[in-house]
């Protein structure tokens, strides 16, 4: 077989698309097969992992959950997520614009933001519970913080990166400060914020999970802890799949919206989340 670089240039013998689908399906089938085999092998007490249900059991559990409380739990989790995400994005945009455009304020406060940023919002979970209790507020605070810490970087970056050409054109056209802000700075910032908001999706969703696992009173995370405490492994795995599916759907939906709103952008740097 040739090296990938050369193979990429050679005309494909079999339709590449068909090959991809066939191999992809084969990969999934093999993965599920290995899972099933492992569950058979470990069914009668095989070392540490003696609680691996077969794939079908998890699937039944998923169907059962989908017919029951899934939607109520999902709505709880999504509400926490949506409120926190919205608050985080708005606050990050405003502070990003202020800190990005004002040299003095940026110099004073950016190092503090930079010092807090690497500390994930997950670390704030216990403090948030002390402050806000187990209810909606503490989770919204955590998700908002997670989203804020991601988006603020994009907002600052966008507010500072006005193309010099446009800056000169604006001067030539005799635009005043406000006009410049509205037609140069704001659109650039909002474009970056849009990208940041998508990158923040997974950070925010992960925070929802941890917050609900720790302060387990409602939502998918509370359900997950509930079935964990009753040693119901198939239900635990079904709940995990629900988390994954919800994250996937949100990510796909947001990518779609983002591509519609900013068709001129290439999607290279935004995939890592």
């Amino acid at each position, binding site marked *: 077989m040739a090296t990938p670089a*050369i193979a990429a240039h050679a005309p494909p013998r079999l339709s590449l698309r068909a090959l991809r689908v066939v191999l992809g399906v084969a990969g999934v089938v093999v993965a599920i097969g290995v899972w099933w085999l492992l569950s058979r092998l470990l069914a009668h007490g095989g070392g540490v992992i003696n609680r691996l249900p077969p794939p079908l059991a998890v699937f039944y559990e998923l169907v059962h959950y989908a017919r029951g409380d899934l939607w109520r739990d999902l709505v709880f989790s999504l509400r926490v997520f949506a409120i926190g995400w919205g608050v985080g994005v708005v606050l990050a945009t405003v502070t990003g614009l202020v800190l990005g455009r004002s040299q003095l304020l940026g*110099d004073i406060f950016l*190092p503090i933001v930079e010092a807090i940023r690497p500390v994930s919002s997950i670390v704030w979970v216990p403090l948030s519970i002390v402050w806000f209790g187990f209810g909606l507020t503490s989770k919204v605070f955590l998700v908002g913080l997670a989203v804020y810490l991601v988006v603020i970087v994009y907002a600052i970056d966008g507010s500072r990166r006005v193309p010099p050409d446009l800056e000169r054109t604006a001067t030539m056209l005799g635009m005043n400060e406000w006009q410049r802000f509205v037609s140069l700075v704001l659109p650039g910032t909002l474009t970056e914020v849009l990208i940041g908001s998508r990158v923040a999706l997974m950070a925010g969703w992960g925070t929802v999970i941890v917050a609900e696992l*720790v302060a387990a009173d409602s939502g998918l995370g509370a359900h997950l802890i509930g079935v964990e405490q009753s040693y119901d492994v198939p239900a635990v795995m079904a709940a995990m799949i629900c988390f994954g599916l919800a994250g996937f759907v949100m990510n796909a939906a947001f990518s779609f919206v983002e591509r519609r709103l900013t068709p001129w952008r290439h999607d290279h740097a935004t995939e890592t989340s």
Partner: protein
Amino acid sequence: MTSTQAISRRVLLPAIGVAMVLAIWEATVVFYKLPAIVLPSPFAVVATLVDLVQTSAFWRDVGVSLYEFVVGYAIGVALGVAVGMLVGERPMFRMAATPVIESLRFIVPFAWIPLTILWFGTSYAGKIALVAYAVFFVMVVSTARAIAQVEPTLSRVGTMLGMGPWRLAWKVHLRAAAPMLASAARAAAAIGWIAVVAAEYIGASAGLGLMITNAATSLTTSVVIAGMIVIGVVGAGVSALIGAASRAWLDYR
């Protein structure tokens, strides 16, 4: 003149910012007469930190968390780079593995925490597995992408020099991809460290995550905040260490 300006921008103004935040924090505590349960003063937090550092229990928690992180991280990076290279080098393998990797990637590590507790109890093994899982996916995706972006000319030169595909992958592609792998390794460290802390919230017998959840339940808020600072500092230290190590390694090569 410019150097004094630079000093004022780099040192003085950030110092003013920190001082302002601390002053507002202290003023809020004094003005609203907040009890220490809600928000201890910055001085109380520093005092708690000083006390903590002198206890052996604290160092045990730090050690446990770091141990879980280091072992899980090493496993995750090794497996992640290996599988990522397979995905990057072998188009057939990539097509077969991509749907599985992508769908597992969406189950974020935190969602695995309850399952790791059922499987491994509150032992270290559960956290190690969790960190390895979290790090693995970061490394697989970045390695595959880095390999795919290697300059095709390099591969052709290697082939011309008579290298087989495995030698080419090992001697040429991996080295060309090294800078991207180094930055991925840093990102993975941050994620892995948080995974340890989160896992310790929910089921652990020791560790920094357990320390601050216990402090939160007993409403000793100063310990919670001190613990958060320690977690942040250790995380930053680990990240800096990995950054320095990978830079030294890249320079050496």
